């Protein structure tokens, strides 16, 4: 025999990547060709040795101190907002995040102003008015904070999710956002309505729950 197996064929044989008929033909050749037999044996030996390299190599002794130092420095830096890991998404830019915070504060203030009016002293129609407004402001701040945090986490994993899954999640979030907007507008107009805070809170809970579940989705789902 004067012809030898191509290098690709030898590799595919070593990797068990050949179709059955090709594999048989290659093995028959190897059995009768000392050159190819030796090459295949050497290749297999090298691959076995390579696989055995998957063990530990001790890192430099002082590396942990360096890692720890970086972690501690970044912990301090994060007392100020760390914009490095802002979530991706069309709506999130540093400016919009700041604007969202401003809107939150403004909205809370607007709710208060709408309830209290320009003259506030002793003009409450019901003793319930201040407590309803105050409790709702605090609750909404909590919801918004949770939403932003979960959005950040979701953005970290978004590129590991199937596009169809991301699209479905965004569609559901959009549905919830419409409901939140409508309920909030109604609450601003009718702050004494006892059912509206419950409905609005329900919508926020839905949003948070959906985001939480979305952050836990496995890759490629």
């Amino acid at each position: 025999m004067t012809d030898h197996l191509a290098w690709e064929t030898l590799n595919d044989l070593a990797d068990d990547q050949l179709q059955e008929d090709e594999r048989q033909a290659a093995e028959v050749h190897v059995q009768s060709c000392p050159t190819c037999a030796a090459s295949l044996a050497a290749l297999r030996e090298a691959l076995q040795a390579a696989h055995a390299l998957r063990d530990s190599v001790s890192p430099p002794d002082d590396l942990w101190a360096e890692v720890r130092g970086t972690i501690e420095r970044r912990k301090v830096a994060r007392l100020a907002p760390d914009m490095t890991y802002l979530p991706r998404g069309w709506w999130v830019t540093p400016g919009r995040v700041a604007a969202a915070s401003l809107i939150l504060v403004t909205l809370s203030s607007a709710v208060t102003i709408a309830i209290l009016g320009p003259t506030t002293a002793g003009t409450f129609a019901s003793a319930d008015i201040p407590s309803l407004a105050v409790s709702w402001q605090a609750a909404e701040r909590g919801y918004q904070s949770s939403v932003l945090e979960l959005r950040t986490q979701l953005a970290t994993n978004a590129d590991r999710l199937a596009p169809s899954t991301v699209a479905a999640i965004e569609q559901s979030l959009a549905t919830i956002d419409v409901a939140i907007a409508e309920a909030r507008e109604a609450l601003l107009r009718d702050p004494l309505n006892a059912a509206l805070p419950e409905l609005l809170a329900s919508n926020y809970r839905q949003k948070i729950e959906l985001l939480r579940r979305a952050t836990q989705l496995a890759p490629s789902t």
Partner: protein
Amino acid sequence: MSEPQPATAPDDATALAARAQRGDVAAFEQLYAQCAGRVFAVCLRMSGDRQRARELTHDAFVRAWERLASFRGESGFETWMHRLTVNVVLASVRSDRRRESRVALTGDLPSPTISAPGRAVGPGDVAARIDLESAVAALTPQARMVFVLHDVEGYRHEEIAQRLALAPGTIRAQLHRARQQLMRMLTR
């Protein structure tokens, strides 16, 4: 890709990760102690340079600390850490390429041909005896990346292709060339 065996029972690492997620640096240090050897090995073999491996290992653990919230415990911590490390190394390679405008060409290696097995280097030879680790380190960067991911770390062609943004067929061809390069060094 075969799953690396955890150094300790998976529940221990998961419990440590849970504590680390709450800000416990001491718990994270224990995770470091358990995983650093594997992480450094991956970085060393993929980069081929000890100093670079040190930097990449540092970056991998800092990234792990900052991304702990994404560890859900569904795989072992060491598996999660391994995946993160490979991502860190590949990201740094892409960053290095952009910075230095250097591209690892697939066609710069000689066409693979079957060659007669060379004479093994004997113990008394003056010529340098290249062991496998050194041979791997001496591969060209792209060849080393593909070889380490496939033949050392056990990634499949398709997984490597996805991570390197290349076609699986291209990865296969690069792998074969890398092995050819390696065999020539080992049998010199």
